[in-house]
């Protein structure tokens, strides 16, 4: 009798506990999430477990590249978790520059969830009453609270919690935010560099004979067109000629308005300084052009034409890894050992952006006219959770996608891509199974296009970074003859960043999350005039017919710029650069 009663009691107790857990567990995607780690992201917070009414919210996504209602696997996750649909409003897609932003703001309703720039834009919207003070929801946002320092910093100047930071991470601000390859670097066609005999490149100008040798090694591309080491384009010219700025970064400088500031604060140069870095690179390009190393179509072509040239192998040097590599390092080419890889310039100190301590340029905010702000707050909070980070980041940013679909924790405890994941990330795309939402994977990617947490940050659930390209299991997958060859040559390094750090050629600017104050209207008008002059003169100088003309153009530029107010703008930018450096030094002191 006693046993039976105990047994019954125990059975009832189990049953009770069982029903209780069943009532409180989340609605998970059925079957396919065969994960071992249960998702606790929403259970830990103070938000409701589920929502009854389906709503559709307007998301003003200033970075979004897709307009309309979000569909596919990401929308299924959002629907299952929050019973919510996302209607993405994308100024990039709708066109017209700031028109959409201005008209929506003038109408008083920017959106329910808003992705915009911090600083002046955020301040204006708060002042205009378009953003909601989310202070009452913040205590429930457990995932966001992990990055509380950043949240507080963002809202320090306002009364309440209006904005939530993006691009936060667990990385130290003195670590580079780039995972594998630096943002800038001298990427050469490795196979041709090899044909030229791997000559040593002591300094920037030594690239010229290397270029010549490479061009001679392959004077025409597969499609019959002439090859050129350098092919330039004007699409991204802003404060200066964009292509001229890139080699300057190899020496640790980055731009801030018209100032070239070194990462460690040891030097600040004005753009138009005599014998400064800007003039040096202009001369470098000028000399290259004199030797026939620059594509004459540079002056009139646009990005699309340039990219096609990279794909066809007509260009032999790339300023950025993601230009040359994504165009040319195809499976076919890399199997033959051809592709763009980082070359070493002996005296280089490539500029790298440290992980921002307090987040990046964009922020998330809840619109003041949102109907269900609590739900949106819960959604925002989810974006900071490991599950949210994996789902929200697009594949181009390195986020791995939902666990169980594209990756899983393998038997050894290490995360690895699933077969489906391999198909997607290496093959280009794949069809998502119906129970995950159907459609193509690429079409189902989150349209928010903002990394709320940096993929390079560590995933607390797995202990390694979110970014799958850093997983050892992935690196084994993508070894090619090209990468092996490169690795051998570069002392066994597995990636550009690894090599640079080992060789001490990386100048990391501590991520101080410094935002420069906005231009006054006076400064803005002057800046716009001056930069137009600089850009125009730079192009003319690169393609000048002789040195005399080159020097003439330079001095004319200096005097015209001065006449348009260059000195005033430069003084303003210098002040900001010093302030930025002070913030960086402070971070260095604290974390270095």
């Amino acid at each position: 009798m006693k046993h039976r009663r105990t047994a019954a009691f125990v059975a009832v107790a189990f049953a009770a506990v069982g029903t209780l857990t069943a009532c409180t567990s989340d609605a998970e995607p059925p079957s396919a999430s065969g994960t071992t780690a249960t998702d606790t992201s929403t259970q830990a917070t103070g938000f409701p477990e589920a929502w009854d009414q389906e709503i559709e919210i307007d998301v003003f996504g200033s970075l979004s590249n897709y307009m309309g209602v979000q569909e596919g696997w990401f929308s299924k996750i959002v629907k299952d978790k929050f019973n919510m649909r996302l209607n993405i409003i994308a100024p990039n897609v709708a066109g017209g520059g700031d028109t959409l932003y201005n008209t929506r703001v003038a109408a008083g309703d920017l959106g329910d969830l808003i992705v915009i720039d911090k600083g002046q834009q955020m301040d204006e919207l708060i002042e205009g009453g378009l953003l909601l003070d989310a202070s009452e929801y913040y205590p429930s946002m457990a995932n966001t609270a992990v990055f509380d320092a950043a949240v507080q910093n963002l809202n320090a100047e306002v009364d309440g919690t209006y904005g939530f930071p993006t691009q936060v991470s667990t990385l130290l601000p003195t670590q580079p935010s780039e995972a594998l390859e630096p943002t800038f670097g001298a990427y050469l066609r490795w196979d041709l560099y090899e044909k030229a005999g791997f000559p040593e490149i002591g300094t920037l100008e030594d690239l010229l004979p290397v270029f010549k040798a490479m061009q001679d090694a392959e004077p025409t591309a597969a499609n019959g067109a002439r090859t050129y080491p350098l092919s330039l384009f004007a699409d991204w010219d802003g404060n200066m000629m964009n292509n001229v700025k890139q080699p300057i970064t190899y020496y640790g400088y980055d731009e801030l308005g018209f100032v070239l500031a070194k990462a460690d604060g040891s030097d600040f140069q004005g753009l138009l300084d005599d014998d400064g870095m800007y003039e040096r690179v202009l001369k470098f390009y000028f000399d290259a052009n004199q030797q026939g190393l620059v594509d004459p179509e540079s002056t009139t072509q646009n990005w699309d034409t340039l990219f096609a040239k990279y794909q066809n192998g007509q260009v032999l040097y790339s300023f950025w890894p993601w230009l040359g590599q994504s165009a040319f390092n195809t499976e076919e080419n890399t199997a033959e050992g051809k592709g763009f890889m980082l070359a070493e310039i002996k005296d280089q100190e490539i500029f790298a952006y440290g992980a921002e301590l307090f987040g990046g340029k964009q922020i998330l905010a809840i619109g003041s006219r949102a109907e269900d702000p609590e739900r949106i707050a819960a959604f925002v909070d989810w974006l900071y959770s490991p599950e949210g980070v994996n789902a929200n980041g697009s594949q181009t940013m390195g986020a791995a996608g939902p666990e169980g679909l594209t990756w899983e924790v393998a038997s050894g405890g290490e995360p690895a891509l699933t077969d489906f994941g391999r198909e997607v990330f290496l093959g280009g795309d794949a069809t998502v199974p119906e129970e995950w939402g159907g459609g193509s994977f690429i079409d189902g990617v989150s349209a928010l296009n903002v990394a709320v947490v940096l993929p390079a940050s560590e995933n607390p659930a797995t202990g390694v970074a979110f970014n799958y390209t850093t997983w050892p299991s992935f690196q084994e997958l993508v070894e090619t003859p090209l990468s092996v060859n490169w690795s051998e040559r570069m002392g066994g390094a597995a990636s550009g960043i690894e090599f640079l750090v080992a060789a001490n050629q990386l100048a990391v600017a501590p991520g101080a999350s410094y935002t420069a104050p906005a231009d006054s209207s006076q400064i803005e008008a002057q800046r716009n005039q001056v930069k137009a002059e600089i850009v125009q003169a730079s192009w003319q100088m690169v393609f000048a017919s002789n040195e005399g003309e080159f020097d003439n153009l330079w001095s004319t530029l200096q005097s015209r710029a001065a006449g348009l107010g260059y000195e005033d703008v430069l003084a303003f930018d210098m002040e900001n650069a010093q302030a930025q450096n002070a913030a960086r030094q402070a971070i260095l002191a604290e974390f270095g």
Partner: protein
Amino acid sequence: MATKVITPKLRNARAQRVATSRTAGARLTIGDLLFNAVNWFGFFIMVLLCAYPFYFLIINSISANDLAAAGDVRFWPQGIHLANYEQVFQLRGLPMAAAVSVGRTVLGTVATVMASGFLGFMFTQRRMWKRQFWYRFTIVTMYFSAGLIPVFIIMRNLGLTNSFWVYILPWVVQPFFIILVKTYVESMPESLQEAAELDGANIVQVFFRVYLPNMTPILATVAIFSAVAQWNSFQDTLIYVTDQSLYTLQFLLYMFINQASSLAQAAQNAGGNVGAIANAATSQTPTSIRMTVSVIVVLPIIFIYPLFQRYFVKGIMLGAVKG
């Protein structure tokens, strides 16, 4: 009409072959033949110059995209495929947008034509109270604008945002078309109006019964211009409409182009992931999309256009009314 057409007695056989009813009575000379030859040749060259670029777009939109982007496709299509067009026809919301576009084009054009015709006619009436003032009041609006935001706010206050009428109402009064009609009406004989008024018609009846049927060439012109403008417009959708069911075809295509450019840029900014390049021949480049969209947008116009051309045939009317 009691005019007599006098046919000349002398006509040679060659002239008989070449002459049409309009040149009946003129002797064909060497000068004429030379002129015709030069004229034909000149226009032929013009047609080549105008049509070749469009032909260029067509062959590029059906050629392999990487070749097109490199500028290699000049005379003949290479690597023919229809993936570009398939992509466009698979756009979400395309049928609805097409319906909206057709709706606004038809309704908007009818409204504009009627309004322009009526106003153009009314402004020729010297007896109208302060005619010249109101005419100038209308014309001058072509030359000033207060900018986007004020107009937007007014539209919103009038309840026109997210409404189909925002595609019609602002287009009703078009000073340029009114000018065209007025100039045309002024070249018509005044006796028309006098005759009708003698019969007891009021001004509105005069317009509808007498002038409207005789203004067909200029109304056809206004119709063409207006229809094309309505068909091609997307700025108003951009600014005033957020309801997807009111998107026009042009706006959908415009977004498609922008999206492709953005996506292409984003994909190109990818962290150099090895091997993730799809088939370059059929994968979209912004260039290929623009060209495809251009062809799609123009083709309906080319097909509708000849329907209007029959209104440019002379002389339906005046003879009947005179005398």
